């Protein structure tokens, strides 16, 4: 075991939200954190583009938000704990987000979860 994790063998399909990701995703995560507040959620729904501009999102982040693409948000520095608040605006739960990221139907994703209990 080493003290510093930068050179660990990557875990496929897994993203450590480290300092590098935190720098890259700050604006996106800050916007999603604002969705704890119902007025902010309403303001976003009313004019998404204006809200993204207010928080200073870059083009990559805006595109990911526009397309509701969770993997693209993660690549743009998003942290799942804040992204979940964005997903909440659209009533998406973590199983629906999981299905989207793994390219599975919701039913197949649920079955996969269940099968791991066998």
């Amino acid at each position: 075991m080493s003290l510093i994790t930068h050179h660990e063998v990557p875990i496929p399909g897994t993203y450590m939200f480290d300092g590098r990701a935190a720098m890259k995703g700050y604006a996106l995560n800050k916007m999603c954190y604002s969705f704890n507040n119902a007025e902010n959620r309403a303001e976003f729904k009313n004019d998404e583009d204006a809200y993204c501009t207010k928080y200073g999102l870059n083009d990559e982040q805006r595109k990911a938000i526009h397309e509701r693409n969770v993997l693209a948000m993660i690549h743009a520095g998003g942290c799942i704990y804040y992204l979940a608040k964005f997903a909440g605006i659209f009533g998406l739960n973590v199983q629906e987000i999981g299905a989207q990221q793994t390219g599975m139907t919701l039913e197949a994703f649920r079955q996969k979860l269940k099968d791991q209990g066998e």
Partner: protein
Amino acid sequence: MARVVGGLTTSHIPAIGNAVPREKELANDPYWKPFFAAYPPARAWLQKMNPDVAVVIYNDHGLNFFLDKMPTFAIGAAARYENADEGWGIPKTPPYQGDPELSWHIIESLVADEFDITSCQEMLVDHGFTVPMSLFWPGNSYGGIKTVPVCINTVQHPLPSPLRCFKLGQAIGRAIESYPKDLKVVVLGTGGMSHQLDGERAGFINKKFDLLCLDKLVNEPEFLTKYSIHELVREAGAQGAEFILWLAMRGVLHGHVTKIHSSYHIAVSNTATGLLVLENAA
């Protein structure tokens, strides 16, 4: 002197926060039945022990803390803690009573013990704290219990190692047992077990590893402190790293404990759920 009577660990999945007010009507629901059926023995044990204080070791998921300031170890020192809107519609729970005098004693003792703590005189508590309180005190009947929230960072890597969290728990245990008031204290460790919400590996669950953790945590927690965070993420999933909160709970207890009850179920939401009740050696 204050005494740690035992500890409980439970998953804190937000979906449970929605289900728990409807526990009675879900008693025969095929999805929820195996989950809720695990809790009556834990509640019975708590009733028997009748604790005065619950020290709740949990993680904040972006309600109280944002990335602008992210403490590794934060401890509440307020007379009262509130829950608030987390953005996805779990019902808000009634407020929690604090014990600022005990909180400050623990903070002072931890800093003297070389743990650098962020003290919080205002602190919102999220589902990591509230869901276990609702599960263990049905109908949110926790009004008579004082609480001390202990929040460990699991959001922003680097996270504190399993060993560090276990040692933090040991230091909390020493702090509590040097408190001059005659109090019975129970300690909660929340979160887990294996789960991953993000990335192409979303939906990952590792039953074999979870069962190993449930077993070793009772009598051989040192075995689990040998994992790095990276190894824990590999074995338990990105959010399965919340297991450090369970290890911190175990650190608070003495070396010898009695296992009162345990349960394991796959899955609620994306998560393997686990429950463990440990009584501390006198």
